[in-house]
């Protein structure tokens, strides 16, 4: 493998930083102006339905909404560039603190869901491809079709009804039983990890009981699509001549499947897993609503509906950053898995 010269590498980093900044700036601009045309009135939310005109007007002025749009935009960009994301219009809470609170909840849920989804979906997809048109393939097809076609909110409700209400196997809504709330200090924001660090096993157990169901439901939905994709990628590889050659060489079935065919679909799979993960970090609104999960999806949607521009902007930039970061990580893995791209 050829090691790139220093100027090339530095140049690449600079290019990357510049494109990232431009992307984020464009995102901020677009969000700001879309926010202006949205038929939402944050003042009305703030003062409530019983307010008189004086109250309404005073609040309107307080939010600076009487300023020309470009002045508002300039002020806003200036603040963002200095790292001051301000307070949410509507709740007065610091947006940064809000995001630091809600985002780990989503990371925790999304990561576990992807582990479940990919951990089951990929092996099942390989199995379905290998045992094409046999009973196990048909069973897997039915399972994944269900995961594709059943609405996730219905699945969420039904699983709550069964596993929480009837069987009492798992905890209900929220991240933890309510009386454990605030019992362990926030270090990473990931409750499972924080409770282990604190050595508080009661909180840990409660957190596991609460996360397992939403993660399983989300994981099942992503498992379905990952499984279908894996199956079709694998089928394509299994029909190739090098597979026949490998078999002729007398390699074991396991080596042929995992050592040869699967090796060649890793790059494609990686892209899809990364996209699935990004979508989950953006927030799984329906699951978060049904499980009262205080995550990023709920936060984003709520602020969007209420027209809270400050909070919305930070959310959009964060989503932008997630996609950019995952892209970089995927690129790095590409280089590891596929030496051609490293050249």
């Amino acid at each position, binding site marked *: 493998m050829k090691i790139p010269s220093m100027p090339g590498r530095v140049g690449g980093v600079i290019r990357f930083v510049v494109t990232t900044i431009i992307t984020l700036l464009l995102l901020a601009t677009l969000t700001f102006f879309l926010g202006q045309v949205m038929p939402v009135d944050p003042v009305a939310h703030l003062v409530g339905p*019983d307010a008189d005109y004086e*109250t309404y007007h005073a609040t309107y002025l307080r939010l600076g909404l009487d300023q020309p749009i470009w002045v508002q935009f300039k002020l806003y960009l200036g603040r963002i560039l200095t790292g001051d994301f301000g307070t949410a219009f509507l*709740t*007065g809470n610091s947006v940064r603190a809000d995001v630091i609170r809600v985002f780990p909840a989503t990371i925790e849920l999304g990561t576990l869901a992807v582990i479940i989804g990919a951990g089951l979906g990929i092996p099942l997809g390989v199995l379905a491809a290998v045992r094409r048109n046999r009973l196990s393939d048909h069973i897997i097809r039915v399972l994944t079709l269900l995961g594709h076609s059943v609405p996730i909110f219905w699945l969420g409700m039904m699983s709550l009804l069964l596993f929480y209400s009837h069987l009492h196997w798992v905890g209900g809504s929220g991240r933890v039983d309510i009386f454990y709330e605030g019992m362990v200090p926030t270090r990473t924001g990931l409750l499972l990890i924080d409770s282990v660090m604190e050595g508080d096993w009661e909180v840990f157990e409660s957190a596991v009981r609460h996360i397992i169901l939403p993660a399983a439901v989300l994981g099942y939905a992503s498992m379905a699509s990952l499984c279908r994709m894996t199956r079709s990628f694998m089928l394509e590889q299994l029909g190739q001549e090098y597979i026949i050659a490998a078999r002729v060489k007398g390699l074991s079935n396991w080596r042929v499947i995992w050592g040869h065919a699967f090796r060649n679909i890793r790059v494609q799979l990686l892209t899809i897993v990364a996209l699935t993960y990004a979508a989950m970090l953006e927030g799984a609104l329906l699951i978060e*609503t049904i499980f009262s999960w*205080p995550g990023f999806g709920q936060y984003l949607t709520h602020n969007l509906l209420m027209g809270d521009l400050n909070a919305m902007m930070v959310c959009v930039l964060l989503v932008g950053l997630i996609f950019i970061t995952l892209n970089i990580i995927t690129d790095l893995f590409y280089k590891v898995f596929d030496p051609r791209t490293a050249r």
Partner: protein
Amino acid sequence: MNLKTLLQAAGLATVMAMTPLATQAATPSNQLVVGVSLVTMVSLDPGAMSGRQSVEVNTNVYDTLITADSAQKGVFHPSLATNWELNEARDAITFHLRKDVKFHSGNPLTAKDFVFSMKRAMELGIGGSNVRVFGYNKDNIDAMIEAPDDYTVIVHFPKPTDPNLILGVIAGKGVCMVIDSKLAMQNQKDGDYGQAWLTTHSAGSGPYILDRWDANSMVILNRNDAYWGGKPEMKRIIYRHMPESQTLRLALEQHDIDIAWGMSVADLKAVQKDEELVTAKVPSGHVFYLAMSMKDEKYAKKEVREAVRHLIDYEGINNTILPFTGTLYQRPIPAGLPGALPNPMYKFDPDLAKKLLADAGYPDGFSTSIRVLSTSPFVNVATALQASLAKGGIKAEIMTGNGDQVYGPMKARKYEMIVGRGGDRTGAHPYTSLLSIVYNPDNSDEAKLYTLQAWRTSFQDTAINEELQKALLEPDEKKQADMYADIQKRFEEDIPAQQIISMAYDTVVYQKDVSNFIGHPYQNTSYLEVKKER
């Protein structure tokens, strides 16, 4: 073979993950868990809050001089003030305060704190519509609210009025809650009277202390062990954001929450059969209505409005769409108040309506639009109205939207019809009920009288305006009640542009072991004495 082993391992892992981890959970006996949607909670500043959950939280964090009885209208109880008296000229009330009250910060609570709280609200101008309506403003507030010494407050009336109304305002939760002036000013920024800080922090003297508020997630209140009114029974009160009705229901059935607000009709019907749960009705002063804009030439005609009055299936809507949220009612003053009258019993009568429409010059009816919130029960009421209006030849298109898209055009007076909920929030006094629905002193667009439903529908009857002010100052109670009754009759003869369909109420569900819980009509539910019998 190897693949099989792997799959078996994965399967085993899944099964293990799903095995029962513990037995059924229940809330601890010294903590109260309330499941509710916290979407409308946007500020915990008593001078600027608007949503009902903010009001309920602050009712338990702040104190008022007096409190309103939860059942009997017009009856007030001592709180920070031990007693109070009206002067002879009937233009001021003097309150005598307790001397043993301390804020959560340890600062003593004095009359100056009350004066500060009121002045602050008027100066900031971001709350207190219900106070300004009686003539208080930032220019006269210094003269109107006085503290001659640390434990005496004198509240003057800016204009002649019924003293009971002022008492209602003082007991009301909002700008009349007493804020710790020292603490608020310590956290002042840019002359905001501590507004930014108080949005997310508290400076009260009430039975509970705000521990934390995570927007759209939870509110935790801790017990104030040194509360002057006695130590509260519960150690913590936890509000958890639960926007989904079915999730609330499951959590109630699992004993994961003690109290649930805002459940849907279907879920309420289901939990009613559960013997472990209590379903209770909490009255409000709001009404469900169908409003027409008299700026529209069709509804400017009296006959058309009367035809619409007879194209509403009152019984059907109340019985099938509004159980748990409304009772059949057609008049502005809620039952039980002075001047309240029995329902006129308007009926769905398409033949009469058709005749009236023909008289108005619309023998074949016309097309119109109904703006309505996209949520239940509003959109369901609109759909029922669409069907019943069609029987009279009125083709109504339903335009659903959020609050901005429905009440925004109503405040801009640019709409044809709206199905909504509104009126006097407290429903505690006939004057305020009438004020919000029949009164309109200035029918110009520039007046922007947002709080008056009559202005919103462009309805104005100057004689009614005068009668209402006269009734307010009538000292003879019997005569006063008759005057309020007469105003309602005249209003109905005018054929108003807002037809009341139902008197709104809320339904709360709680565990049977929760005692002393009384849902208060003005969202002033106190948790001081609530406990669990276990």
